[in-house]
């Protein structure tokens, strides 16, 4: 009896794991095969021309570049905020300080807040500041979304910085600020992983940019112009009744998926390097 029960459950466990792996491959297969059939060089290198949304020629270069500009801006903004915060709670405050733990708790909660709430809040903030839907609005909102991700993942590696290193720097007479500069240099692989994770999350998120970044057929040339983004390009074109336009949504989905795959594998590569060097 005991043996049979164990066998049944082990079978179920293997089946469950198998199903999960199969789902991933099925998703990738559907997106890639559907996307490849409508993929073209023009999609990558042209902006939409007249009649694009009726199925005429053009590409989604506007959305690709828009997404890149947007993510570049928000990653920079969130680095400027999250790296100092992580350094502060790890290296200036005492170990196990109540304030640091409260901060970690707050970041864990912020991490769980859905992107649509950030989107709504970002929009509110923009009205308050008098900014229209623009690259800048999108950058601020996406930064709000990825700051918790970045903080949590840098915080995780910061715990492994050898105490000896900190003590050695300080015994040489360095100030805390100078010590932190040394630590940051040590943390570069960890920070890189954190950046890749945040880029992956930020570049694919549609709900944050839906109201804040706007949408345009041209390539933005200033922070105050609206910017098209890949997830929205997929979303809008898929809801079109015209088949050619829908096909472009599949091609755009393929582009986004390839970007995510590259980011995910490079993040893995950097974090494996990190665990090897035992930092």
């Amino acid at each position: 009896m005991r043996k049979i029960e164990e066998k049944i459950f082990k079978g179920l466990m293997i089946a469950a794991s198998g199903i999960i792996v199969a789902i991933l491959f099925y998703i990738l297969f559907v997106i890639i095969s559907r996307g490849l059939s409508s993929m073209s060089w023009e999609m990558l290198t042209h902006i939409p021309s007249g009649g694009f949304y009726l199925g005429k020629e053009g590409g989604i270069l506007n959305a690709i570049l828009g997404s890149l500009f947007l993510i570049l801006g928000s990653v920079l903004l969130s680095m400027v905020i999250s790296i100092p915060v992580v350094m502060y709670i790890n290296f200036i405050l005492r170990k196990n300080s109540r304030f640091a733990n409260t901060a970690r708790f707050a970041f864990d909660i912020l991490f769980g807040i859905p992107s649509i709430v950030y989107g709504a809040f970002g929009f509110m903030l923009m009205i308050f500041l008098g900014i229209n839907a623009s690259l800048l609005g999108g950058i601020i909102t996406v930064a709000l979304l990825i700051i918790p991700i970045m903080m949590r993942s840098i915080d995780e590696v910061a715990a492994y910085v050898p105490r000896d290193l900190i003590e050695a720097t300080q015994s040489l007479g360095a100030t805390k600020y100078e010590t932190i500069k040394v630590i940051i240099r040590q943390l570069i692989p960890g920070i890189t992983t954190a950046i890749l994770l945040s880029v992956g999350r930020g570049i694919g998120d549609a709900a944050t940019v839906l109201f804040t970044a706007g949408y345009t057929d041209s390539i933005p040339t200033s922070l105050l112009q609206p910017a098209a983004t890949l997830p929205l390009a997929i979303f809008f074109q898929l809801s079109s009744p015209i088949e050619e336009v829908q096909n472009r949504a599949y091609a755009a989905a393929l582009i986004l998926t390839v970007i995510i795959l590259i980011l995910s594998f490079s993040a893995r590569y950097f974090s494996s390097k990190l665990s090897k060097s035992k930092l």
Partner: protein
Amino acid sequence: MNDKLRVRLIKNMVARHYMLCLTVFCLLIMFIIGTGLLIKSLPVLKEKGIWELLTTSNWRPFKGDFGFLSFILSTLYVTLIAILIAVPLSVLSSIYLSEYATRNVKRIFSPVVDLLSGIPPVIYGVWGTLTIVPLISEKIAPHFVDFSTGYSVLAGGVVLAIMIIPLIISILTEVFNSISRELREASLSLGATKWETVKKVILRKSLPGIIAAVVLAVSRAFGETIAVLMVCGNFTEIPQSIFDSCYPLPALIANNYGEMMSLPNYEAALMFSALLLFSIIVLFNAGSRLMLYQINRRYQL
């Protein structure tokens, strides 16, 4: 004190204060978001009262009727289906991974979980409309109801289930790992089989962790927007069966944002739904995170 030292000390002071300010600011963000949403939704709250907003289902923005019941129920149904599908799958496979799987299997599985959690919602949406929606309308629904477009509660639930699986697995793996080796070995040495150890020791010990993981997954499912928007059909009626279309709260916000400015109280009503999501999710997250901290602390000692 020479000048060089003074400069270094000043730099140190400035950096310290900059870091402190940023940390405090980040702690305040949550309150700023909450207060902002509350202030913006006050007009509609004052006019209708929270009870009427939550328990009526008349949604006629042009007449000033804002009843959220059908959206709230849609969200609950979709989430319930997602949890029913995702929890058994993820619990079974995380037990397998932490107790049975060889190192090689783990090595294959961990990038799979990473990738599943990395795929953007909009891609899940595309996949859902290409596969799940036609599957439901052509193969599954005809056995049960006369007609279904496939854009339905069930489609939303299935897509959401896949989206929350990686979250549950990653938390559960941590929870199972936190159970000490001695406990397992004690059970095995008393003659229990591996499965009995799993069932009577590991699952029982990690029950709080499993609950915390499920609560986190529920709150993730509550807030998911674009994927759900793309496969649920967005129809403002209380769904009668899982093959009916539905209209979860986040989809409501996303769909109506642009046009909301002209109607009185419309913006306030949408902000109220954001506030609703925000408060429930913050509450759920706070509860389950505290639970997970406790688990970690107990086993680290």
